[in-house]
């Protein structure tokens, strides 16, 4: 079978799962209060977009996620570059960074609430804090792993420090940085949803929580489907960006 044929077959399997979901819902395996079928979920999606409620929530969540992610990426690359370029900084700060990395980002939410209250700034701060680690650590690693010969070349050419960073260190650590930023984006979406739930800021996170508390299961599943779609689109988008920005690597090797 051809590649497209297999792809179609895998769509068919996906459709089969949806049919099974529909049959389970129709058979009332779980009360329809808890488990809507794909038909009701689809109707809730259409209704939500027609009234604009769902599209508003989606937009709010997307904004939060992207803003937090950009903030985290800027801070992560800047601090990561500073640490990665200097061996003493790595020796003094490295262990602290290694300690912070496995810390669940949501554990700083109570602290953020204390400082910012239940506000948009709190949610943004938590997203930025949580999403900064993958990018920061990847940048440190990327900058520390630059081929030492390249630094010798730059010295021979008499490049300024800024030129060394911009022309040599940054491009050569770009694969690491982009990999870290991809992870950061996933973390951003998760923390945007959690932050909205906790602080009751408008968005898909608070939307699905309210839907669950009021037993609007169709709206709940519609929101979850939309969040899955958002996760899929952002991940694919970043893969595409990565392939585009790293085109030079394939020809260079």
């Amino acid at each position: 079978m051809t590649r497209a044929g297999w792809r179609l077959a895998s769509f068919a399997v996906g459709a089969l799962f949806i049919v099974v979901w529909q049959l389970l819902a129709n058979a009332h395996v779980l009360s329809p209060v808890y488990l809507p079928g794909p038909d009701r979920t689809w109707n809730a999606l259409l209704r939500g977009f027609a009234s604009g409620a769902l599209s508003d929530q989606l937009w709010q969540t997307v904004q939060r996620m992207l803003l937090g992610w950009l903030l985290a990426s800027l801070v992560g690359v800047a601090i990561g570059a500073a640490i990665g370029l200097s061996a003493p900084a790595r020796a003094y700060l490295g262990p602290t960074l290694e300690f912070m990395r496995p810390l669940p980002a949501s554990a700083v939410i109570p602290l953020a609430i204390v400082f910012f209250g239940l506000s948009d700034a709190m949610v943004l701060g938590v997203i930025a804090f949580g999403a900064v680690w993958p990018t920061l650590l990847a940048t440190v690693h990327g900058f520390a792993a630059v081929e030492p010969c390249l630094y010798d070349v730059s010295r021979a050419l008499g490049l300024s420090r800024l030129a060394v960073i911009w022309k040599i260190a940054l491009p050569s650590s770009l694969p690491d940085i982009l990999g870290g930023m991809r992870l950061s984006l996933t973390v951003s979406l998760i923390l945007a949803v959690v932050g909205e739930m906790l602080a009751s800021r408008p968005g898909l996170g608070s939307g699905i929580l309210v839907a669950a508390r009021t037993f609007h299961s169709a709206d709940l599943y519609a929101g979850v489907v939309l969040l899955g779609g958002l996760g899929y689109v952002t991940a694919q988008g970043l893969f595409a960006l990565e392939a585009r920005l790293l085109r030079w690597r394939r020809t260079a090797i």
Partner: protein
Amino acid sequence: MSRLRGLAFPVALLVMAQVAAMATHLQSYTLAAPSDALLAGMHAVADGSLLIATLQTLANAFGGLALGGVFGLIGGILLGSSAIADRLMEFSVEALRPIPSVALIPIAMLTFGFGFRMEIAIVAFAAFWPVLILTRNAVAGIDPALLDVARALRLRPFARTVKIVLPAALPRIFVGFRLAAGIALTVAVTVEVSTNPLGLGYGMILAEQSLHPDLMLAYLVWIGVLGWGLNFAIVHAQRRLFGRSALAGPS
């Protein structure tokens, strides 16, 4: 020496916070001196509340890891050993995997109510994916010569899986479990902070809402130590079991 230099930064930070708190005679509902956080932490240890919360969080994290890990392992072996199954499931995996685990909080809440079942279900979903993907890649990537041996020995599929495929793929499967363990703890704390009244995450929220910043900070540091310790233990076990080479791959 290098270890001392690594300690210098956090120690300096703590000393500065302590001096600042003492110089300003800190009386606050939002901040606490490191010494007060330490005292509050020792109180929580003494009255057993920290231990109970830790056990609850770990029960949820490991319960979810076990459940999601078993399903991920079985699914990964199936997808890894059958190219047909892998291609047929491609779209379904692609469609379900990007759903953020926290999006399932309301669904689990509606289905199970609060408690262990709800949290374990969410952790299991989150832990399932890294195990599934890394097991699939590990099984699909084992040396074809080993499969020829299995064919020559006329092993049945089950014997082939248990005696040849799993041992050969184990180091890389372990990497999947290592990633999943970190995710499991993170998701467990997240569910507790956001909704479920159990464990360390809820303890932190409770301390924050009852205006005990010292206890809240103690919980935060303890969660950090727990996450770091878990990661350290698993990396250590990995090195013991499979040697240094097994540490390659995403860390």
